[in-house]
């Protein structure tokens, strides 16, 4: 389980003005949540805080009974290696590594045998439909294909939590649909907790829950209930 309790983040160097506060959330394995909100409300910052990439100014994050807010920076880095997977808007594939190598990076960091890591990466690429191109280079891929590789990389080490920051922001709607289908299918089949930050209602609708980030915490998205189901949604 992932528990977030009264998380608070202030603007750099200020004490009184919170970017957001009283953010609380509880997620069970296999559960996914989409977090929406206006630009600048701190959605990406919230993801960074959850991953320990930015310090929080209050509140607690617990993962499997471990208080993450108490971890030092390096301890958090070690935890990230094991328990977190990332999907970014800008893909962040390393251009000088083959697709298989890109997917294998998290396994390398976990000190896994290189041959074994390579096998697992290839299996993973097969699952995202790019098995035949394991030895190709990222520059030969389309945006949608790149994000598929990124999804493979986010899940290859079977993390407990997968954090996705606007994963379809760089893709056209058609490709976005395919990537989202894949992303949610893989998260669910891996039994991971999925947290998705997005502007896109189409993307958000794939999640089990939709929450809206405000300065004073997460609220249930009022439009969520009456929102049409994803297939009917054309545009944001």
């Amino acid at each position, binding site marked *: 389980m992932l528990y977030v309790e009264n998380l608070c983040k202030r603007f750099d160097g200020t004490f009184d003005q919170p970017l957001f506060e009283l953010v609380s959330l509880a997620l069970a394995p296999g559960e996914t949540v989409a977090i929406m909100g206006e630009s600048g409300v701190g959605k990406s910052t919230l993801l960074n805080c959850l*991953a320990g990439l930015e310090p929080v100014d209050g509140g607690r994050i617990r993962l499997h009974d471990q208080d993450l807010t108490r971890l030092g920076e390096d301890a958090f880095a070690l935890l*990230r290696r094991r328990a*977190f997977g*990332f999907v*970014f808007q800008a893909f*962040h594939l*390393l251009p000088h590594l083959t697709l298989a190598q890109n997917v294998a*990076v*998290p396994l390398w960091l976990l000190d896994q045998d*290189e041959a074994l890591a390579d096998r697992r990466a290839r299996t993973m690429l097969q699952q995202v439909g790019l098995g035949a191109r394991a030895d190709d280079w990222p520059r030969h891929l389309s945006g949608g294909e790149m994000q598929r590789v990124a999804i493979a990389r986010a899940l290859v080490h079977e993390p407990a939590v997968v954090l996705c920051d606007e994963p379809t922001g760089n893709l056209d709607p058609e490709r976005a649909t395919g990537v989202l289908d894949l992303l949610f299918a893989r998260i669910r089949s891996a039994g991971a907790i999925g947290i998705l930050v997005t502007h896109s209602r189409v993307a958000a609708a794939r999640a089990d829950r939709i929450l809206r980030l405000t300065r004073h915490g997460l609220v249930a998205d009022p439009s969520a209930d009456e929102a049409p189901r994803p297939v009917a949604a054309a545009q944001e």
Partner: protein
Amino acid sequence: MNRPHIDPVLRHLFIASLWRRRLATTLSLIAIALGVALGLAVQLIHAAAIDEFGRGLRLLSGEADLQVVGPRSGFDDRLYLELAQRPEIAEASPLLDIEARLPGRDETLRIFGIDLFRVGAVTPPLIPVAETPFETDADDPAAPTDRLAALRPDALFLSPAAATRLGLAVGDELLVQVGLHEKPLRIAGAVPGAGVGQALAVMDIGAAQQLFDRIDRLTRVDLRLAAGVDRDLAQRRLADKLPAGVSLLTPREAESEALGVSRAYRVNLTMLAVIALVTGGFLVFSAQLLAVVRRRQEFAFLRALGLDRRGLARGLLAEGAMLGLIGGLIGVALAHLLTALAFRIIGGDLGAGFFQGVAPPWRPEPELSLLYLGLGLLAGLAGAWLPAREAARMVPARGLRAGDEAEVYRARPRWGAALAALGLAAALSLLPPVDGLPIFGYLAVALILAGSVLALPGATPWAMRLLKRRRTTLVRLARARLAAAPGQAVVAGAGVLASVALAVAMAIMVASFRDSVDDWLSQMLPADLYLRASSSVASGYLDLNAVDRVTALPGVASVRPVRFETVRLDAARESVALIARPVLGGHSLPLVAGSLTPVLGPDALRPAWISEAMADRLRLGVGDRLEVPLAERRYAFEVAGIWRDYARQYGAVVIELDDFRALTDDFRTNDLGVFLAPGTDPEIVMAAIRVALGERVSEIAEPGAIRALILEVFDRTFLVTYLMLIVAVLIGLFGVGTTFAALAASRRREFGILRHLGLRRRQVGTLIALEAALTAAVGVAIGLAAGGAIAIVLIEVVNRQSFHWSMDLQLPAGLLVIFSITLVTLAAFSARLAGRQAMRQDAVLAVREDW
């Protein structure tokens, strides 16, 4: 605990990046390799030369416990008889050491006159073995008949190296010059114990004394102490019994005396190699820093994936270490190649002439090689250190966003640190040398460099303010960029600064030195012609009769005879040169203090003029009293002046020729300055002298030729220096080029935005060139100032302390102006060229890539 997991990460994510930026990597490798190669080669050549030289000295001292050594003219051989009878002494072996001039040949031959019945007991390697070309006695080389053959007055025994060098075999005749006469000697055998590296000859001491006109004279006595006698005690007790100017040394003291001469030169060359190595480290620094900027997002992403700070820093340090290690390995290989080549071509001498005639074999020297490999590794690690720290400090969440590169370049002004470094440099340059080496001077040079680099971030915005009046968009853009991101100026400009500073410092130093040497030569060589029987140390000389004959030649107005001798002063450990010549009456000497025409009272001491080296070493000033041993007695002189001498590093003292002759009864002359009557053709007089004295036994030269020769030697001596410097500057320039290329590449997005905003492709190129020119101009300006300061330290501290040479500061202004303009232009040009690559990228793509 988490070290092993780094392996594939290290390989694919860090080390592999070196391969991706091959140009920068190659340059860093070249710089480190050259630094290591030059430094190690200097050390290898010197280590081998010193070793061979020292081996020669040890060989020649044999099993002697103590050695009695005197001036070059030697001492009375009665001293030997007295010493031989002392109870402390078991064996004494007398020796006469002669540097024989060989008529018609350029080289001289070192001949040892030995007592055949004594030499075996103390110096067995010098035992001659007679070989008769006709009747062979091979099975009994030490047969009595051979001993007797060695006693023949014309019998000479050559070491294998000397026989090879002179191309002589047993039975051949060799002519040696004594005064102005040629005397024949016959090769009677070999000195097999001398080893392969030592070119020397041995003959009977009585015959040598006779032949070289040194009756009753010895230059050395080797002593073996009786069993149970304490050496230090014996040394102290016997030293009291010695006449003035004669010393008693242990063989080790004699060796260190001989080797001390070349040490400062060697240290100076090593320092230059260190500079090359520092340049290498610096290139690694700028290459790594730029790589870190370019890979910022990648690192942020890897941190997000769980790479910890230490893992990141370790990866980047591993890149630096890899560069250092490979560069070091190439450098070590190159050094051994250079050394082997140098031994084959020039022997063991690096241009300063200390080890001429020593032909050492190449040796692997594993410790030295490892040491320099380590230094290469260190340069790579040191260069990678700051960028690694910078990368590890980055907040990953921020690095994941684009446009964060400027953060790196936001350097704070560091005026405090800069001033502190410069102040400390000034203070250090006032300190005396450590053990004869200008350690603090070198530290001051390093601090000046560091201080001026630290001044760059503060000076850049300040310099940009000077451009405020110009309103062109491009100038404004360039100015704004540099003022806002002075860190960019530090990365790119520091390379310019360092190479300019070092090049300027060396240019000023060498120009000043050469100018001073030239000036010195014109003062030292006032006569129209110079005549010498042989170099001052060898066996040729002119007697009074010869001098008179030259004086009497038509066209000769007057002559100035000079006598060279070496003396051992009580106060100095090493021998100094004694030059006896007419001084009073206006004969010039390049004085820096005192007077050539001292006012001498009736009971005044005799005047002496000492060289700067002597003044420094013995802490003597004008008016001080100086005791000089002449003909085994001490005479008091008063220091009347201090003169500049670039020829004799251990010091020289000039006294009046008349005083010398009166005190020593020695009327021989080594050099004769000939002043011609007005309108006389020097060629005719030269021809007349050759006829009068003999063609092969004298050398005549006009001052112009001597000067040209000496300046040629000077330039050759500085050749190694020049080469190393050019290499350093070239590497620095290449570094500037790659720096700007990398900068342009890392700013692709910025340029893309500018293109979006309406700048034309060409304008972006101009902007890049403008920024580079401005950066380089600031670097050049500060570099010129720093170079000037370093030159002053080199001249006033480093040279003064290593060689005791003063010189007049000479600014090669034209050269410096051309150099500066060239450098700024090259920087702009290379940046423009590099920028073309960045501009080729589609502007739209460059901007979107990041969204």
